[in-house]
């Protein structure tokens, strides 16, 4: 069964025909060719497939593409604006918040959504927010530092 869907992805309107069972992550990666969003556990545990659906972080391996019809989807490709990295991307670089980088796109999306609703999250709030995103390299320490750094930068602070 096919469905015609309209989705705004990183600000651009997309119209597509999708099968009922097509998962959002496959739609993003294979139909839109936006491969920044990764697939990890494929069972809604690891969070590497995290995208924002109408501004909220969700695991796109556990959402049907047809469920996103009429919604706004943001992926890691949409974080950068006008050739300039998002402060959270800069912060991940600055604070060495990644090693292998596999979890990074999902982690960035979750952290950017956190900073959108909480301008200066505490360490505990950061740890809580990223508890659905697994990282096997960093021990999370530098990710927490990066979010604090980005919050500081976004508030106009200089480091």
């Amino acid at each position: 069964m096919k469905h015609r869907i309209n989705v705004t992805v990183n600000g651009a309107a997309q119209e597509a025909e999708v099968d009922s069972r097509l998962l959002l992550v496959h739609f993003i990666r294979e139909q839109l060719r936006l491969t920044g969003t990764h697939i990890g556990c494929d069972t809604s545990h690891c969070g590497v497939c995290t995208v924002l659906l109408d501004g909220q972080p969700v695991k796109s391996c556990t959402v049907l593409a047809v469920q996103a019809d009429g919604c706004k989807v943001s992926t890691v490709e949409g974080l950068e604006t006008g050739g300039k990295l998002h402060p959270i991307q800069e912060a991940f670089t600055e604070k060495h918040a990644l090693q292998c980088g596999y979890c990074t796109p999902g982690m960035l999306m979750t952290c950017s959504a956190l900073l959108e609703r909480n301008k200066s999250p505490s360490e505990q709030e950061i740890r809580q927010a990223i508890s659905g995103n697994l990282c096997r390299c960093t021990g999370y320490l530098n990710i927490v530092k990066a979010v604090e750094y980005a919050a500081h930068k976004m508030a106009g602070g200089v480091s």
Partner: protein
Amino acid sequence: MIPAPFDYHRPGTLDEAIGLLSRHGPDAKVLAGGMSLLPALKLRLGTCGHLVDIGRIPGLEYVKEDAGTLRIGAGTRQCVLAQSETVNSRYGVLADAVPLIADPLVRNRGTFGGNVANGDPANDGPAIVIALGAELVVRGRQGERTVAANRFYKDLFVTALAPDEILTEIRIPLPPPRSGSAYRKLKRKTGDYAAAAAAVQVTLDARGAVQRACIALTNAGPTPVEAVQAARFLEGKAPDEKNIAEAARLAASAAAPSADRRGSVEYKREMARVLTARALKAALERAGGN
């Protein structure tokens, strides 16, 4: 992983959804947040010919208190419930439990009604609604009816819902004065199901003795376990260490968990005892603070 093929329907009203369910019978499944159903379909633990997505039906997402009842729309996402002032100030068991369901990203999609109606004893919702003495409002072709939460769960993934019925609301009676409730859960990591968990609500009488108690256990058998004997034991007694310990022992003896990666039967039963005692203490403290 890709689920087996199915047809997807997105009805605009409850009646339309019920119509689809009755047309397709047991071959149709209700999709709410999809946080349990979609993984099950992907892992091919289940299949269905028709998915009826109730996620866009207006009027299913609300939390309101009126006429001595807390009403939670079945479509209320767990992230919304977790932020409700009403819930967090008066329903300790919900305030404790909702932030422990899965992880924050899952709670952004997962609905409380789905958690309750899925019929999985590993979900936290079932024990909570039993402890709170909730009534579950369901709608089908024959109209609306209510089912007491402690009569809703029949077997593993089998509930009182007929194939054409949808859970629409969870009605929780406002706890009387000097009541408190709590949830204590043991899980190996964020996102895991409970190795054991206990939901309790207690009400104290004017002398400070336990007037009423309700204890329910998560993941302690094919259905949520209501520890009736333990609750009856406590009623009329002083809420002291000795009585709490005995009630917790009785609750654990009602548990019938199965062994898995989360532990042996003995371990899980022992954890059910420990967590019941902790939940009782927390709930009693809250009851005293009223």
